[in-house]
């Protein structure tokens, strides 16, 4: 149980990263690959947040002036993840627009068949 307690978030995060990478590596449908990238992004975000967690800490928000809790989770990773999420959606939107264009040109999304540029 203490193993789980200590590592469950890491397992979740790296599980997502690995599954995402695996999708990119073995799948040859472009949409699948993009889904893999998005899963990987989510995993990375989870990992960052997990790093900043402080056991029994509270969210870093002083909801009323009286709160003087020192035990707050680290706000920095949260700020980073906010940024990373937005970057992720930006990349994804671009990727999908490219996928639409690609489909128009090639009539397929199978990356095995989209190999005009090689060597």
């Amino acid at each position, binding site marked *: 149980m203490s193993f789980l307690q200590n590592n469950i978030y890491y397992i979740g995060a790296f599980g997502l990263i*690995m599954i995402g990478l695996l999708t990119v590596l073995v799948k040859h449908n472009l949409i699948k690959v993009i889904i893999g990238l998005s899963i990987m992004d989510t995993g990375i975000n989870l990992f960052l947040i997990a790093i900043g967690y402080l056991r029994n800490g509270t969210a870093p928000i002083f909801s009323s002036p009286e709160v003087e809790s020192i035990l707050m989770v680290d706000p920095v990773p949260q700020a980073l993840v906010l940024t990373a999420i937005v970057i992720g959606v930006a990349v994804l939107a671009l990727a999908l627009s490219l996928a639409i264009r690609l489909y128009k040109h090639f009539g397929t999304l199978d990356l095995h068949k989209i190999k005009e540029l090689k060597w």
Partner: protein
Amino acid sequence: MKSVFSLILLVVLGAGVVFTLSSIPFGSTSSDVGEYYIDSGRADTGATNIVTSVVVGYRAFDTLGEVTVLFVAAIGLGAILAAGRENEEKKKAEWEPASLVLYTGCRFLFPLILLFGAYVFIHGHLTPGGGFQGGAVIASAFLMVYLGCRKKRISRTWARNTESISGLVFVVTGLTGLAVGGHYFLSNFLPEGTLNTLFSAGIIPIIYIAIGLKVGSELTGVIDDLIEESE
């Protein structure tokens, strides 16, 4: 074969990760920087949401970059979709009109969601949420209208100008800080006010509102571009 090989690679990678993670025990790391933010974030920036004070205060430059990333993606997406569209004949696909319930519901919910989005980013320095979340909410409101009301479109120039003006507000706020407030880019040149009130935290609400509008209009623009493409 290939997947087995990939798995082996990932296992090796995982082993390296596990090895490194062993020096970052979960839930007990403490960072000097993070502690400093928690201790003096309120005094430095006047925001009670420390995440906000980090995002828009200490690391506001990141946020400027991030807004730019979204901006770049929106333009890029527009450019890519526009490049192919030029030499295609426009054919209007027939949309099946949405049911009346959906239509009315959308029209009813739309202002409410917008309002909620605005609330989220205006109160970014006090409560969870901020420009990005608020912007996303606003964009989802438009998305809902697009899906529910089908024919409704926002004005592109309007969206573009909002985007561009709010971006400018961000930069100009920063430059004003450079000019008047302590000679640092993005430094706070407004009074910090009292904690936990709406009009506090100096430039943070201004920036967050700008971000909210910008993110909202950009994401809307992205959706608009994509939907237009799919017609």
